[in-house]
């Protein structure tokens, strides 16, 4: 027995495979798809779809069942949690107490209010809308950038990410990773956000140019960051560890126990639907994507 490569494994079993179950970590390319003579279904547990060759799937008539809106509430909760943590220094304060600094050092530095903050949401899909709904209750003013303006939405729309950043105190990344959004948050955008600006990322790490963001944080060119995702997870740039104006989360924004149980039910439900010729529970509609 040796270790089979992925290709050898697929070749050996391909004729009996009818469906693929994926997480977001391994790309499914047209090569993989070609090895499988009759996959009809891909079920992915990831929030995003950038690991799947979508045009190839469409060409071959392969259905895709995604996670739908399953993660949106957890992701929105965590985005808000990270923002409050950064502005009010919750994690810093908790460390302060556990290191027994309160009795000796006394006064803890002040944070910043949420009410009145201009919050720019990057990507107003289901996650972005959940974030907006929550932050409105704190008195934040919501702005957004998205592929297209949404006619039913009252929040001010900025077609240009730089203009959004100039008009925001906070940027919250809630969008998919695509060719257009890769490194969309670059140095120019970060500088426009400004030295009191805060960036929160619960989306895909590659939407932000991580190197530039690191530089801006180190030089005080932006005010702070709350990050659930990093370009080379689980390797996180060590320079971040010394900063008190960043809050770090190990890519768990979407992972509450309740959601994982719901995910299991959703995955099983989608397979059952497919194999009994019923409509998928959470089909990815191809023509909405490109």
């Amino acid at each position, binding site marked *: 027995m040796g270790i089979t490569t992925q290709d050898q494994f697929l070749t050996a079993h391909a004729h009996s495979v009818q469906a693929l179950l994926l997480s977001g970590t391994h790309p499914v390319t047209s090569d993989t798809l070609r090895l499988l003579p009759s996959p009809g279904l891909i079920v992915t547990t990831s929030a995003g779809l950038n690991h799947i060759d979508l045009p190839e799937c469409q060409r071959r008539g392969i259905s895709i069942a995604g996670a739908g809106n399953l993660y949106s509430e957890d992701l929105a909760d965590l985005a808000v949690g990270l923002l409050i943590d950064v502005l009010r220094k919750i994690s810093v304060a908790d460390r302060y107490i556990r290191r027994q600094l309160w009795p000796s050092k006394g006064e803890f530095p002040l*944070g910043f*209010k949420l009410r009145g903050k201009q919050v720019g949401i990057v990507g107003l899909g289901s996650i972005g809308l959940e974030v907006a709904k929550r932050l409105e209750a704190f008195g934040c003013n919501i702005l957004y950038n998205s592929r297209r303006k949404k006619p039913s939405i009252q929040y001010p729309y900025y077609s240009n990410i730089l203009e959004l950043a100039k008009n925001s105190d906070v940027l919250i990344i809630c969008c998919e990773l695509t060719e257009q959004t890769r490194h969309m948050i670059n140095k120019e955008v970060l500088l426009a956000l400004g030295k009191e600006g805060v960036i929160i990322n619960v989306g895909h790490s590659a939407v932000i140019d991580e190197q530039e963001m690191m530089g801006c944080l180190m030089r005080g060119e932006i005010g702070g960051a709350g990050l659930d995702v990093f370009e080379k997870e689980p390797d996180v740039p060590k320079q971040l560890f010394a900063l008190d104006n960043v809050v770090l989360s190990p890519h768990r924004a979407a992972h509450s126990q*309740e959601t994982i149980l719901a995910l299991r039910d959703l995955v099983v439900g989608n397979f059952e639907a497919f194999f009994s010729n019923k409509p998928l529970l959470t089909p990815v509609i191809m023509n909405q994507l490109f």
Partner: protein
Amino acid sequence: MKSIGVLMTCHMDSYLEQELEKRFNLLRFWTATEKSTFLATHKNSIRAVVGNAFGGADAELIESLPKLEIVASFSVGLDKIDLAKCKEKGIRVTNTPDVLTDDVADLSIGLMLAVLRKLCESDRYVRSDKWKKGDYTLTTKFTGKTVGIIGLGRIGMAVAKRAEAFSCPIHYYSRTEKPETKYKYYPSVVELAANCDILVVACSLTEETRHIIDREVIDALGRKGVLINVGRGRHVDEPELVSALVECRLGGAGLDVFEHEPEVPEELFGLDNVVLLPHVGTGTVETRQAMADLVIGNLEAHFQKKPLLTPVV
């Protein structure tokens, strides 16, 4: 007004000190080596006391200041002021309501998210490089959890409004039922605790509400329940709370206040289901300035014989 003596009970805010110093003869009580001598020396010039959640004006202090006319608190809570004594002697009392409501409510939700989603613990996990060894555990979802609020005043209502945006059903206990809200009323704290996932203390501290969170309430809240305290440390029977957390009889706690600040029970430091804050409920630049402006505004109004801005007594 530069001859008017204003006694500041403890160090509370640099901007406030600076502004008081510009207008009055500011006397910093915490710097006195011998407090009774200090009072004896200055008693005839002190016409105002500026206090806060740590140091107010008790009967003893009031009695030792014969020229005292007004106590302006740098807080909304009045538990450190002997209100009855002030009324008896015709001493005015002011506080800082409304300006701090948002901050305390924001922090309450922040604590709920931090406890349930383990924000501080997972930040520690990343910073200690443990992520390379394995993924962090699953945490508890916040959206949809039932939030029970003790005290539906300004702060309680602000907490409710925010929690509703997370689809949290709101239950509450208050001295009187508030039928104009659509929230579910419980006639006792124990019943409220038994019927919510997260219990928030948002009422003022009085004789009646001291230790309102006792063993019975903690047991009713239970193994999966979470307590959030942004009120006063003395709202909670702290030794009971600590043992419930250590013995896993309570699911978790987010605490901004403690019975003997700045002392925090050390048994809590090893727990991953608690978040501990150094009384920063009103701790933003904007709010502390607004609070300070109210203190100054009230003092100026009093000494200029104009109506007080936010009188209590």
